[in-house]
């Protein structure tokens, strides 16, 4: 019963190796993204961005990391030491954990969890603690204000983020992200779930604390917000966490609404002729990159709303919208069902 053959152990070993590769690729991707973002912003803003380290400045992130490793690892004497150290660890790892349930291609993915989507929602909830802990443990006023804003904003947006995604869950009849992708074989969910998509993208930007929902660290208002007292590598971990969040939310948008690794298909029509080759990873990477670029473009283009406006939008617009989306989706499914069952 419990005997494992070498072949089995090899299979398990390969799976573990893949997990490590995915981890490294994600973190490296997050690092690289910091360079890409600066270059792309520079391009949009008529300036260069980092272009000195390596070709096109591509090693900028490496140089930054080396610098950060050698910076003083300062813990403020007025801080709550344990929580102060814990916060960046949560900040970096919470959303990173979610990568474990993200199907990149049919072969590449760490685990096909039956509750993959719930796992993401849970981890998004845990990620709030990073900012909250950082704000509180710093024992500094700007950090505290940033932490409070973050807590209020993320809590408010998580309420409807979950509900917004339930439309997708209904259509796929599963919380498993693999099943959700499979269910989009004949048509991406962007069409039937357009409202859900809008709500999710907004909530996703808010959960990743990206502009224009970067209130917790709104530089113009709170200096550096929750990470005011952070320096060196601990600060960098928040930074990496933010970019992991960007990658993750982009990947999830693709998985939930744009068919994941699959080639384009809308409303039952395949838009990709069968005789052309299919590269699941390229599709996934391409679509995810588009959303990552969208994140950056939003940052370049939009001012930041005020705290009360963000809260109003969440509670008074997106929450009712998500609930309505849920009911409409259910009603449509049920209206179609007797026909399907009777046939």
């Amino acid at each position, binding site marked *: 019963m419990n005997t494992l053959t070498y072949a089995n152990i090899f299979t398990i070993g390969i799976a573990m190796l893949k997990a490590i590769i995915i981890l490294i690729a994600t973190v490296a991707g997050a690092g690289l993204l910091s360079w890409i973002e600066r270059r792309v*912003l520079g391009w*949009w*803003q*008529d*300036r260069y961005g980092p272009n000195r380290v390596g070709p096109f400045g591509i090693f900028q992130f490496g140089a930054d990391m080396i610098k950060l490793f050698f910076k003083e690892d300062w813990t403020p004497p007025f801080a709550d030491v344990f929580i102060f150290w814990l916060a960046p660890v949560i900040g970096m790892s919470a959303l990173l954990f979610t990568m474990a349930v993200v199907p990149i291609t049919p072969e590449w993915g760490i685990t096909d969890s039956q509750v993959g989507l719930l796992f993401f929602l849970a981890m998004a909830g845990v990620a709030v603690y990073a900012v909250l802990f950082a704000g509180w443990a710093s024992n500094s*006023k*700007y950090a*505290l*204000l940033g932490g*409070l*804003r973050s807590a209020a904003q993320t809590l408010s947006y998580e309420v409807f983020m979950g509900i917004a995604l339930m439309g997708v869950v209904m259509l796929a009849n599963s919380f498993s992200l693999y099943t959700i992708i499979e269910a989009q074989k004949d048509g991406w969910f962007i069409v039937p779930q357009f409202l859900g998509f809008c709500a999710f993208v907004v909530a996703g930007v808010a959960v990743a604390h990206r*502009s*224009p929902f*970067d209130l917790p660290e*709104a*530089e*113009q*208002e*709170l*200096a550096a917000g929750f990470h005011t007292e952070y320096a060196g590598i601990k600060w960098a971990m928040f930074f990496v966490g933010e970019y992991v969040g960007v990658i993750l939310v982009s990947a999830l948008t693709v998985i939930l609404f744009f068919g994941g690794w699959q080639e384009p298909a809308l409303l039952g029509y395949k838009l990709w002729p069968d005789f052309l080759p299919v590269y699941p990873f390229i599709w996934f990477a391409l679509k995810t990159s588009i959303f990552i670029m969208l994140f950056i473009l939003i*940052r*370049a*283009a*939009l*001012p*930041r*709303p*005020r*705290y*009360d*406006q963000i809260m109003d939008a969440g509670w008074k617009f997106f929450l009712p919208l998500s609930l309505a989306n849920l009911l409409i989706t259910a009603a449509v499914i049920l209206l179609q069902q007797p026909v399907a069952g009777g046939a």
Partner: protein
Amino acid sequence: MSTQSDTQPVATTKGHEVVRELVTQFGAETFKLQATCDGIPTLWTPKERLLEVLHFLRHTIRPYVMLYDLSAIDEQLRTKRRDQPPADFTVFYHLLSIERNSDVRIKVALSSDNLHLPTAIKIWPNANWYEREIWDLFGIEFDGHPLLARILLPSNWQGHPLRKSYPARATEFDPFFLDAAKQDAAQEALRFKPEDWGMQLGTKDVDYMFLNLGPNHPSAHGAFRIILQLDGEEIVDCVPDIGYHHRGAEKMAERQSWHSYIPYTDRIDYLGGVMNNLPYVLAVEKLAGIQVPERVEIIRIMMAEFFRITSHLLFLGTYVQDVGGMSPIFFMFADRQKAYDVIEAVTGFRMHPAWFRIGGIAHDLPTGWDKKVKEFLDWMPKRLDEYYKAAFMNGILRMRTIDVAKYNAEQALAWGVTGAGLRATGIDYDLRKQRPYSGYERLEFDVPLAHNGDAYDRAMVRFEELRQSLRIIRQCLDNMPSGPYKADHPLTCPPPKERTLKDIETLINHFLSVSWGPVIPAGESSQMIEATKGINSYYIISDASTMSYRTRIRTPSFPHLQQIPEVIRGSMVPDLIAYLASIDFVMADVDR
């Protein structure tokens, strides 16, 4: 002008309209009328009747709604006062009436043994900071002032620097060392004590947070500190604290020759460049009786408008950035560089050319200047249209700024607000139109107005002003008069050199004028201009010397910051940021 008698009794002067009104109200014997070169009726009023007079002027028909300026003069070393009433110190109130479009200056004589005056806060709320400034720099006390604390200097400072007895040079002091103890004392002096300001520490249920926003903060626009009393994110009250950028510009004026002070003026509103030179040289020219050629006037206007453009572009960029939009500022910086290219080609410098001279400008326009100016005029309008579409029509920006930090015309006037902040409340008051100076009457332009008085309107007024400035520059380009770039006057500085090698008299005159500097005739003069940030003026007193006896610099940003608490109470921190951005101030302009 200096040959006339400086002071005449009221009874024998027909005088100005306001002088007649005052004489009718208070009797001729109450006042002594003083003649000045700037045409502003200047009346010496006895200390006992001061408040009555001020109150009357504030509430008369067509009232003097604005306390435009309030400062003091140490008269103790002044020799050429003529028949001005005896005084050790003089406090002057410069009042402005929008309806009359004219001013009046009320002067009060004080003797050293009794440096007390009643406060005017009840009449004009913005007297508060001015009175603190006078206390800080002259040591004159205002009775009834709620908190007569130092404002420009640290609270642990010794002495009152604008007194003539106070040394002006570092060499007159012991060498300064900043040791740990002094550093600690200075830091401790900055600690905010809510009790001093009558602020509660909290209510039964809630602790208020006292938060220092600035002097080291990304949105404080320089070394500006504002202490917030916060309930969550709501601003219960706040105390603006200035002085971190104080350089003693007024004191320095008393130790620089008339000519060598020009570069200091550039750095008052450090974004205004030669625009800062303008009120100073105009005031000195009035005193010296210099009439500059038309070409000089138009060149001055053109360069000043260039600086209005660079300043407004920086304002708009930081404004959008402060509400979170990161991109426009980069584009606007590129535009500013193009403007600076023109400025550099003409003046030789970019930000602080110090290019105007008493009686002219430093040199004539270079060959090919018109091509450069034209390039800029062709470049800019397209960009402005883009900014309007991309940044100012943006829904989030409008949401953030419309109806935020709103004040009405009444409040604006009471607090001494000038410039775009005043015109955004619907008051059509632009000095270039109302009191044209330096040849603005010859140019066509409109004065943009808005009526809502909120953060958005203030930006939009400035945005429109950019277009008007381009229009003015275009007219200067098309109609540049020919002629000399310097007035032919003995006090022009530096004097024309051509004839110096021909006769010894001119050479001597040139030598003295260049080495010591010109001796400007005794008298008083002032000039107000519509600067980038509001009305800027220099009130200059000459005691017939190579240096100014007293130079009072009235800057627009100072009263604008004083108004903050009234406007922002009950709003949130992000509103404060949008408000600060919409004021358009630089701390050098506030602190001098």
